[in-house]
């Protein structure tokens, strides 16, 4: 009978985070957060989820904002490259921000290539117009483009529930394929934040070039509207230069910090720790980069999929993708080199 009677359902637009949390709590598991709905709508249709109430967070004032906090607020971001380096910024992305907003954001386009390119890889433009970064992370798919890049950026999410609010690393949220530590029937992510890789804050203003960079590389069965065969996000930073600006060269700086994230090579977006620790402290030479790619292939555990690719193929291209992404990121960290 239920088949042909209209399911009655609530659809609510809270106007504040507190209200949203209250609405969820009041329905004791019967309500669920909805962002863009691009994952949730198909899940409801397939009967995988049947929430009696949807709490739409996309109209909560402020959640659609991308905030760039920099020390040099006075100067527009991009005339102020030195400042980016000297006084690292931090970016906070609201939970209602779509991939379209991310890929069109001026500051991100100039400074966080991996994020912008990952955003542009999600489905196609009409998907990006609705899909949120937060939703992508909560959906917890091992190859989700947004989740993989978030892991590489060491991003954190702000989780709010009845017990309060806290920041948690994105990487700690994935409990298995499609399983998130965030429970959208009682919790919501309100924002995602990250800083340039390797900056704890202290930095000498003498350094005039950005010494960090990010990159994204993805292989799919076609150029748009295809889940990845493999995706790779990296974020790197180099040690402060030892000498004056003009003599700087890539050889002159060792790797301060490096993050390499891959999907789908395990039950969740995975970091390639062995490759990372191999690189840390070394010079970013071609050999070192190639070796890191091989190490990544050694620790990755991809599987075969009927429609995308076999495990063997994935293993074969991991070194290529990782090396290409690393080279691109190091080149960005040292824009004068290459």
């Amino acid at each position: 009978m239920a088949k042909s009677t209209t399911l009655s359902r609530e659809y609510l637009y809270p106007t504040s985070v507190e209200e949203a949390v209250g609405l969820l709590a009041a329905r004791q598991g019967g309500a669920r957060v909805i962002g863009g709905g691009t994952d949730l709508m198909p899940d409801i249709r397939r009967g995988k989820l049947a929430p009696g109430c949807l709490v739409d967070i996309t109209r909560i004032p402020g959640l659609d904002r991308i905030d760039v906090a920099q020390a040099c607020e006075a100067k527009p971001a991009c005339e102020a490259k030195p400042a980016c380096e000297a006084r690292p910024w931090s970016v906070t992305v609201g939970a209602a921000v779509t991939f379209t907003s991310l890929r069109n954001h001026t500051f991100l386009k100039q400074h966080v290539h991996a994020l912008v390119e990952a955003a542009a890889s999600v489905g196609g433009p009409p998907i990006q117009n609705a899909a949120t970064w937060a939703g992508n992370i909560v959906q917890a798919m091992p190859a989700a483009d947004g989740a993989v890049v978030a892991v590489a950026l060491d991003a954190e999410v702000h989780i709010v529930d009845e017990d309060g609010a806290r920041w948690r690393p994105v990487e700690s949220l994935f409990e298995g394929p499609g399983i998130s530590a965030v429970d959208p029937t009682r919790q919501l992510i309100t924002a995602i934040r990250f800083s340039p890789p390797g900056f704890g804050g202290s930095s000498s203003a003498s350094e005039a070039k950005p010494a960090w960079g990010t990159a994204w590389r993805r292989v799919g069965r076609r150029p748009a509207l295809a889940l990845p065969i493999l995706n790779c996000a990296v974020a790197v930073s180099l040690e402060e230069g030892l000498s004056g600006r003009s003599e700087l060269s890539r050889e002159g700086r060792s790797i301060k910090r490096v993050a390499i994230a891959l999907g789908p090579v395990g039950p969740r977006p995975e970091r390639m720790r062995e490759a990372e620790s191999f690189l840390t402290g070394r010079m970013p030479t071609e050999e070192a980069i190639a070796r890191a790619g091989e190490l990544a292939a050694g620790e990755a555990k991809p599987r075969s999929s009927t429609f995308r690719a076999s495990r063997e193929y994935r293993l074969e291209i991991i070194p290529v993708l990782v090396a290409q992404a690393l080279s691109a990121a190091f080149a960005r960290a040292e824009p004068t080199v290459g």
Partner: protein
Amino acid sequence: MHWLEQDSDNRNDRTEARGSGSDQRVGGPPDVRRERDMSISFQLNGRPTTVAGDPARSLLDVLRRDLRLTGTKQGCDHEGECGACTVLLDGVAVRSCLTPVAKAAGRDVVTIEGLGQSGALHPIQEAFVELGAVQCGYCAPGMVLTAKALLDREPAPPRRQILEALAGNLCRCTGYLRIVEAVELAAARLRAEATPGSSHPRAPVSELGAPQRWVVGGDATRVDSVDKVTGRAQYVEDLRMSGILHARVVRSPHHHARLVALDVTRALDLEGVVRAMTAADIPGENGLGDYSRDEPILTPLNGTCKMQGAPVALVVAASPEWAQAGVEAIEAEYEILPHIFGIEEALAEDAVSIYPEGNILTTEAEAHGDLEEALDRSDVVLETRYHTTWQEHATLERETLLGYFDEKDRLTVVGGTHQPHWQRRYIAAALKLDTERVRVIMPPTGGSFGGRQDPWPFVATALATYGARAPVRLTYTRSESFEASPKRHPYRVRYRVGATADGCLTGIKVRVDANTGGYDGHGQYIANYALTASGGPYQYRAVDAHAQTVYTNGPKAGQFRGFGSPQSVFALESTLDELAERLGEDPLEFRRKNAIGQASTSFLGYPVAESLGYQEVLDSIRPRYRSLLEEAASFNAGSSSGGLRKGVGFSGMWYRFGKSGTLRIEAHAELSQDGGFVVYCSAPDYGQGTNTTMAQMAAEALGVPRGRVRVVNADTARTPDSHIQGASRATYFVGGAVCRATHVLREEILGAAAEMLDRAPIDLTLAEDRVLASPSDATEGVSGRVHAEGAETSVSLVEVAREFDRIGKSRKTRGVFDLSPLFPEDTRPEYIPLFVTGAQVAEVIVDTQTGEVVVPRVVAAHDVGRVINPLDARGQIEGAVVMGIGTALMEEYVPGASTGFGDYYLPTAMSMPEIDVTLVEVASFEGPYGAKGLGEAAIVPSAPAIINAISRAIGARIRSLPATPERVLSHLTADS
């Protein structure tokens, strides 16, 4: 549509207008939160609209079902995979199938109905119509709106940005190029940098301007594209009927299984279920006639289901949801049998037996000359083996049909197909009805490519309608379409080919095995086409060819653009490429050297019967080919190419057109009472444009503007039987009949007018709506009477029509196009040798580290005979080129696994190469205005050209389709 009654309740009754300040709105004032079954208000195409119901229902369903705005299309199962459902939400293009209607609350929704309805088309729509961006039109509303969102934001987007913006919208027909050009033209106009008709190279052919007599050979806009870009075209899913019921199908979930029990009682217990039908409920023959000789409509109890998706029962219910509930309530039990998918397994000694008579459906053979001797005398003999895979037609419109009883109580089925009269026959046999009691009508259709030849949906819809005695609609889901619709036959092709050191082909031995899956599905004829295509337009001293169709438990295969030829040609043209490589010959010159001429003995052992332009094709493509080769060489020599390598591939082909069904086709033409012209023919238009072509040819023959001609096309109650439209025969055969019928009509009109005007017919001309006498110096009429000055020198067609009626003369004429005298029954060759030829050159860039391939450019040259509509001809070729990219690189149906557009990769706009088209016009001997067939031929050389390019780029031969990154890389690593 005129032949359907409209549902009584009006769309406007449902669109409840509310003031925008209403406190009923969701998303309005902060304090308002609606409770259950809330009502949702938004602006829809500028009008305040309120809807009620589940707020999480998709905006798509609310628009189509509740608000009856059917311009928004559905192409996938609400998965966000196709873009047909695109609407604008606050100016942003979104998937309405993924958008809960509640998200519209307080927002502006624009659907295609919001654009260009008040007479003037929006510039984007206008450009789509003008530049031929609309073929079947199913993608058009979504495309237009996506383009609008882009241009509103970005008035001068570079091409790259347009491609990116359109990348989420699939189009199976056009190849995207026309769409992209239309967006560019519209952008230019919107910027007022261009005014209509100014400097743009493709000024539209005006239909409304001065009477344009010669309409053949001029770019002509489609007769139906305005309806399609405005969302007004009524596809079957858009038709309304009161009391309509919905059918769904119970299908076997197993690849090979015996149906041991089937119980429908639990379904019948459901309130909304009207009927549940099994094989026992079929009054007549439980089969699909001679189309598919072994395929039951519904597998009978204790019968064997030979493939996954084999139908066992039909449920007819009050709503699609009830029908689905009925399907789930039916209890079927199966005894699972071992299954096989591959040709090799099916032909093994101890193979699983699918049919008692064996696993071979049909065989074809052709041999002449002494092969062994020819190969012995060759300097090089090459043995090759090639494989292709299942391909899905993947038309954007799913299988949808509507059955009802018409005003004469005829059981009527409306559905897109190639053979309305044959469908009528299959229905009549299944229902044990007189064919006159059955009617089949062709509606606007969202693509076919051969897929809609399948009689099953027709017979099933008829059975459901007959059983329920009420109108019934059958719509496949996309995943059902993937499971149960016919596919392209996978082939295994093996060659032994010889050549002399100086590059002359000697002998050819070919063995083709075509995998027809669990059922015939017309696979019986595939071997015939596979065989003809396997030799190509080349000369051999000896031929030994054999082709067979083999059963497996894969999906039933059927017709797919190219009629069994592309797979053979892929294998042949790859083999020739290998041979050329071995001989150190240039691939193009090697073909040229061996190409047959008009009088040569062909691969079939006799000369061709139509003009053959292959040498002209090769000559016309040579310069572009050479320059691409040079570019590739310098790219590869450069140091900056990194892991990238360029390759250039060539493929030629011939394609046997025209022969499907009869060699004799009839069409009718009528002078209507209002002085207009009506053509009655059966040249079904599923998007390839026959409605337009027939109107053009009729207008040409009559000498009137096309706007004066109306085409009644493919309605068994009104149009003559043209058997089956396959093998690109519409223009040549049906067009030929239309030309003859209209020619006769013109003669008769002039004859009657001559009497009326007292002039000789030769002095008369047909103008727009009158017959004019040439300015008379002769004042003496044919009767000898002397005309006074100022006497009647013209007569209107209305008056002529009246005169016909007065003297009891029929206003309808008949035209027959008949090739049977050319091929008398007793000497008729096995393979009627009507051929078109063509060649394509593809440029690829291969990433040798990952195996990824892009196709930046394709050059296509096709001999199409005289071109009737250059715009359409180009559109067909561009569409085929992009479909060929799909075949070569992406498309692969996996039985038991593929479910839809999310796992079956069609090319998107981002895959579109630059496409250069050359139309080589070598006029046909017999066709109307020298035309030949084109629609299918264009697909044939696309994939082999790309595969040859990849193989040359990587220095290793790709021998199976598709060339996925993984497959390409495996060749690279294996060979290094």
